[in-house]
């Protein structure tokens, strides 16, 4: 059973044109996938559909053979909280929660009991052990992103969705972050689906879906 299966999906914003031509995508467990395309090609839109944050205007998305459109909104919320982790481009953390509480939040939203020991172990693994009690404002952008990675892993999701995880980074950091993402996802048994316009990281993925962008 594929982890994720999208068939003939299409999206429209405000009754405009289709953002991308109807597309199919199958992600098997462990099959790390890169969605590659220029800015405005619809990568974020596609990730929204895969996460159940929006429903496609045509076609269907199935997560572990469960149609997302068949679930109501709160069931999709639960499914996202339980089975998916997110690493985003800019806004990584909840400003009013400290580092550990940000991580534990993912466990709470997954419906499980917070496990501070696991959160701290993950932080230590990402080289952030000393930052556990800090507030997000006291972290650098890169540190905040790694905390977000810990949060994306802590509840043992099967799918990690990453939107432009490396676009703000120089080559050295870009390589470091992408290997960290892949390595940690593998260590926790999660599959990574990342969207980027950054062709530098193409080689790390077993599957690449290219979005053409508009003419």
């Amino acid at each position, binding site marked *: 059973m594929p982890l994720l299966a999208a068939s003939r999906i299409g999206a429209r914003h405000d009754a405009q044109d289709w953002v991308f031509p109807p597309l199919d995508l199958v992600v098997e467990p462990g099959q790390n996938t890169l969605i590659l395309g220029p800015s405005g090609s619809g990568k974020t839109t596609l990730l929204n559909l895969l996460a159940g944050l929006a429903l496609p205007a045509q076609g269907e998305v199935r997560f572990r053979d469960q149609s997302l459109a068949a679930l109501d909104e709160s069931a999709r919320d639960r499914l996202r909280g339980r089975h998916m982790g997110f690493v985003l481009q800019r806004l990584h953390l*909840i400003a009013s929660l400290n580092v550990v509480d940000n991580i534990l939040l993912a466990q709470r939203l*997954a419906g499980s009991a917070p496990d501070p020991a696991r959160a701290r172990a993950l932080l230590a693994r990402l080289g952030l052990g000393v930052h556990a009690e800090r507030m997000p404002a006291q972290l650098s952008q890169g540190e905040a992103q790694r905390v977000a990675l810990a949060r994306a892993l802590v509840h043992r999701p099967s799918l990690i969705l990453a939107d432009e995880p490396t676009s703000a980074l120089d080559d050295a950091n870009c390589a470091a972050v992408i290997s960290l993402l892949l390595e940690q996802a593998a260590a926790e048994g999660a599959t990574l689906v990342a969207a980027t316009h950054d062709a530098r990281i193409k080689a790390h993925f077993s599957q690449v879906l290219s979005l053409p962008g508009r003419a």
Partner: protein
Amino acid sequence: MSLLHDAATGWLLATASLRARLAATLLTVALLAVGVALIIALLLVSRQLEAKSERDNAGIDLVVGAKGSPLQLILSSVYHVDIPTGNIPQADATRVAALPMVRRAVPLALGDSYRRFRIVGTDTGFDALYGLRVAAGTRAQRPMEAMLGAEVARTTGMAPGARFAGNHGLSDSAAGHTEESFIVTGVFAPTGSVADRLIVTPLDSVWHLHPSKVPPAGREPHAHGDANHDDADQDAAQRKITALLIQYASPLAAARLPREINAGSALQAASPAAEMTRLFGFLGIGIDTLRALAALIVVLASLGVFSALSAAMAERRGDLQLLRVLGAPRGVVCVSVLAQGAVIGLAGVILGLLSGHLAVEALGAGLARPQGIGLGGWTWAADEAWVVLVALAMALGASLMPAWRAYRTNLSAGLAEL
């Protein structure tokens, strides 16, 4: 179970958000507390003043005295706070007391004081009126014997056997009767009424001290060498008293007795209940103004809750959206905002309740002696429950709109803005 779990998550987010904006949170709580405290204090003070005036009323239906301001007559002869309107012939008083509509009539002769405690010439009917019992010594019977109210005894330290000389008038500075002194024969048990702060002596004492047979009431400041003092030879027919306290034999008397007395030329009859209603009417305007001010403060505090939460919402729009992306159901996001309003509301109300009561207690302690009105902070007024409920409802109400906006946090943008 999942509901409980969601509520716990919402609560966590709410307290974290309040902590992150601690200064604004505390300011809003303080504002609400001030408003609630003011309302509570006003409530307690006016309730206790009313209860106090009822106790001092001692079931007096009517006061008969010299013509003048009826309020002044009541204040001077029932509450012992103002100068009497004048004196009336004892013969007239006796005639009124004998009417069938009158169950009990207690004469008062006022005008002298000792260390600002008023000396009241009266008969033993006064004891029955105020429920006075002798706590120490024996009841004064003869002229120049005196009974002390409980608070007089406590303040002056006098006990049965002590001697003191009264002053003319109601202040310390007036000339004294240095040639004549009272002897204390007993002390009354405390009643919680104005009688605790009075010195009670037989009517004859006053006439004994004032050979004119006219109590000094109504002509303060009184000086010796007054023309009346020279004709020492007036007889009992010319004796005067200051006022007569009356209890009706039947409620029907209320309709006729005051009118009959006021129709006559020399006397005035005034009802304590009516005059107090009038007085509290005046005071009420002031109290209402303060109350409106306090209500305004509570409204402002609610607006403060609203704007604090709205500002926090604007600041946290990204946070709320991130929460939704991470799988927080709408309910959790909504609860996290509502809980903030609830926390601010509860904290403000509890703080306001405490400080309101504390303020009244402090006020009572400050005003205690010797003309104390016996204010205390540690009693409850029934209306406080309403104040608490309304203030809480307003704080919660103010967070409804922000909470609704949080509930509506749009997911269609999804990851786009994050």
